[in-house]
Structures are given as C-alpha cells and as structure tokens.
C-alpha cells in the first residue's frame, strides 16, 4: 500500500499539500511543531495512492513517498 511519511519539524503549514492531494489524505494537526506551526499530518493513510503530488508541491521537502 502506498504511503507517505512526514518530517513534521520541517512543515510550515502552508496547506499546499492538503489542497492538492487528489485523495484528501492530508490535514492540519492540532499540535505545534518546534517552529510554532500546526504541521500537516496524514489523516487517511488508507486513501493514499503514492502519486507524489504532495511531495512535489511541498516547498519544504517534508514528504517521503513509498510505493
């Protein structure tokens, strides 16, 4: 099953990945990261198709994608 991992300390909560993920896999977390942002988290891992779109639009190199 395709899968993404998130290096949450790099995330700046810009929302681009959430917006462009074709499957609605991602969403903002409640907690703060060390930079003071609410980082993206994987809300629906089962939906991920490993398309790498999140990784591509992420300006902060947060994602690793596995297929």
């Amino acid at each position: 099953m395709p899968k993404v991992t998130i290096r949450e300390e790099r995330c700046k909560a810009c929302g681009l990945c959430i917006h462009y993920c074709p499957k609605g896999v991602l969403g903002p977390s409640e907690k703060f990261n060390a930079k003071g942002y609410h980082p993206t988290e994987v809300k629906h891992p089962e939906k991920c198709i490993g398309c790498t779109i999140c990784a591509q639009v992420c300006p902060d190199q947060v994602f690793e994608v596995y297929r």
Partner: protein
Amino acid sequence: MSTETMKKVYSIPESLRNRPHHYCPGCGHGIVLSIVGELVDELGVRDRAVGIAPVGCSVFLYEYYDFDCVQAAHGRAPAVATGLKRANPDLFVISYQGDGDLAAIGTAEIIHAANRSENFSTIFINNAIYGMTGGQMAPTTLLGQKSQTTPYGRNPNTDGFPVRVCELLNSLEGPYYLERVCVATPQDRVKAKKAIKKAFTYQLEGKGFSLVEVLSQCPTNWGMSVLDSVKWVKEVMAQTFPLGVFRDKGQQK
C-alpha cells in the same frame, strides 16, 4: 507494509542538504529548490555543479544545495557565473536570481551575459516583488499592485511598466533558450521541471545561455493566503507574463 520493503518514490534530493530552509510558508522558492535538487541528481552533475546564490530571499541557497556554491553581490550573479564558467568550463553553473536582482540592479549583467551567450543556466524567480527586503516594488510588479514603495499602487506614469524579461532577452541574438513557467499547481510544476531540465541539458551540451523564468508566489509580501497566492499567479500574474517558450534554438533545427 513497512517502508523498508517499499520503493521510495520521493524523498529529499541528494543534492540538497537535509536541513530546513527559511522560506516563508508556501513560497515558490521552496518548490523550485526541490526541482533543482531533483535535476542535479537526475543529471548526475552534483560533483561538478556550482550554485550561485543571489541577494534576495534565496540568498542562503548555499546552505540548501549540497554542492559547491558562491554567494554573489546583488544583481551580479550573471557576472559571477561568467567568471566561473570562463575560468573553468567543466563546471556546471546554476545561476539563480530574483526579479529585483535580475531585472533592476542587474539589468546590464543579465543582458550582456545573455548577449554573449555565456554557457550557464539561469533560473529567474519572478515574484513581482522584492521579497527579502520586505515587499518593495520590483521591476515586475504589476500595474496597480500595492507594495511598500508603491503604497498607492504601481502607476505606469511614474513607476514604469512591468518588465517582461523573456521578451526583453528575446530581442537579443545570444540566448539559446528562454521559457516562462510557474509552480502554482502540480501540473505547472511538471512543466517547470521540464523547462529547467532543458536549460541544464543545453548547458551540458555547450549550447550557451538559457533562462527559465518562474512565476513564483510570495504570499508574505502579497499579503495573501498561500492558496490565494497560487490562484493569483495563474489568474492575474500570467496575464501580464504569459507562460510559454520564447526561444528554443534547439527546436529550430
């Protein structure tokens, strides 16, 4: 299934250092950074690459690229690139400039490097603003756009017109390849990467000067949400700066 047994289909490029950068949330610079890293990996040129960091929001590029780098004075990246490449033609030189850097203070340098068709690749980040200094008018600021130094909106009568860099350079004989792209959507990002790859490849083939202009969102200084900013790139900015290939000598033949 554990990640070990899976194929990693995306991770941070090896040509980038694994450390966070200082770009604002959603900034286009960050996306282009990934693209450059991916391509240096793909083309296998990391060990002869030299990155040029301009003065602007991308001033710290040398902390993000994991290859040799030089920091250039404001506007002078094309001259520094010329010096590097003339000194050692084996180097793979990636020049990177913002719109204030390239189209204001560095106008003469980019025009003459392009006119001499110096054999390096320029990535030109057009975000219609001086990002790093806090949002002053850039040569590329749109008419009517407010900025720290056009508080009443850019007025062509006093502040001039948005400078279209691809069109300007296209009036010279020197450039080999000129294209304007953006990174507003995943599809745009694919095209942008293709364009930059072409520029890099031409350099490796010794073809001469290439420039890829990237319309790039600056949510911070545009005073917009990230999502509004990518929309604005496509819907507003691209009106003044039409996307497309302006020159491709490789295709003429």
